[in-house]
């Protein structure tokens, strides 16, 4: 998967068929609670629910904080669906949209370059993606992790106020399947 944010209004990830939907007020204090409401629909057999929950709360935090400016009058709408091997969410806020998306991509590329060259001093400059709107609590790390975690992509709509993410989990399987029945030591064909 490309290591960057994409803008594609036509992406299949925006198809809400069969997804649950919930709407939340943009209350910073309730972010963990909203996340729990969403994650409780995930099947119990799913692996690593902890990290899934953490990644979802980051996205909601972004919508509440950056999208809706912590304004409880504004809503965050979330569509979500889970399967044992699949997690898919669409998060929409009422804000002006992530207009600095391309800059973020460039910033991320430069950050990755620092990591590859192991230039940790330079990396310090890539801790937080600061724009006029962000403050000192914004570490920017959330998006770095998100781009890694959602292996089916992090896709924005044209307006950039709605983001769709998805991740596939490896399915547990037991042994490898054979094409035909092999002979047996106990059968006469040995």
């Amino acid at each position: 998967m490309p290591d960057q944010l994409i803008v594609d209004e036509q992406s299949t990830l925006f198809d809400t068929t069969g997804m649950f939907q919930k709407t939340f007020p943009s209350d910073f204090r309730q972010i963990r609670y909203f996340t729990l409401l969403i994650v409780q629909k995930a099947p119990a057999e799913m692996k690593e629910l902890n990290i899934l929950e953490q990644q979802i709360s980051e996205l909601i935090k972004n919508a509440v904080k950056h999208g809706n400016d912590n304004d409880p009058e504004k809503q965050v709408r979330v569509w979500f669906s889970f399967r044992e091997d699949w997690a898919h969410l669409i998060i929409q806020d009422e804000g002006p949209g992530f207009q600095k998306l391309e800059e973020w991509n460039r910033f991320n590329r430069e950050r990755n370059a620092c990591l590859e060259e192991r230039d940790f001093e330079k990396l310090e400059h890539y801790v937080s993606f600061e724009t006029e709107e962000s403050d000192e609590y914004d570490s920017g790390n959330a998006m770095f992790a998100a781009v890694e975690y959602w292996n089916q992509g992090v896709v924005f709509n044209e307006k950039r106020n709605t983001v769709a993410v998805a991740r596939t989990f490896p399915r547990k399987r037991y042994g490898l399947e054979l094409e035909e029945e092999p002979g047996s030591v106990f059968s006469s064909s040995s």
Partner: protein
Amino acid sequence: MAFRNMDIRLRRAGSVYIVDISGEMDLYNAHKLKEVVKKMLEKGIRDYVINVDSVTYIDSTGIGALMHVHSTIKKQGKRMLLANVKGTVRQVIQLTKLMDYFDIVEDETAALRRMKAEA
């Protein structure tokens, strides 16, 4: 501010100070770490071992706080090690590709050994 469980305790092992963090290092709490370390730096403490064994949850703000203290301590020419990086904490640090950025040691014993060796 929402009340959420995060505890910071300090211990001493010789000249090394161990910062035991327990609970959730998230957007509500993470700043506490920065405050504690700031005070410790003012007191002139040189060797820090940040023990995240009992951290049950960490998000980007928590990572940001760890990066902040790491960089501040380093800039002052002092030493910081991160110990007991497991579970979700480990996964989040891996996702942000910061495993090599921090000085990670397996546990407290390894941390103290290293501090002593590099003294």
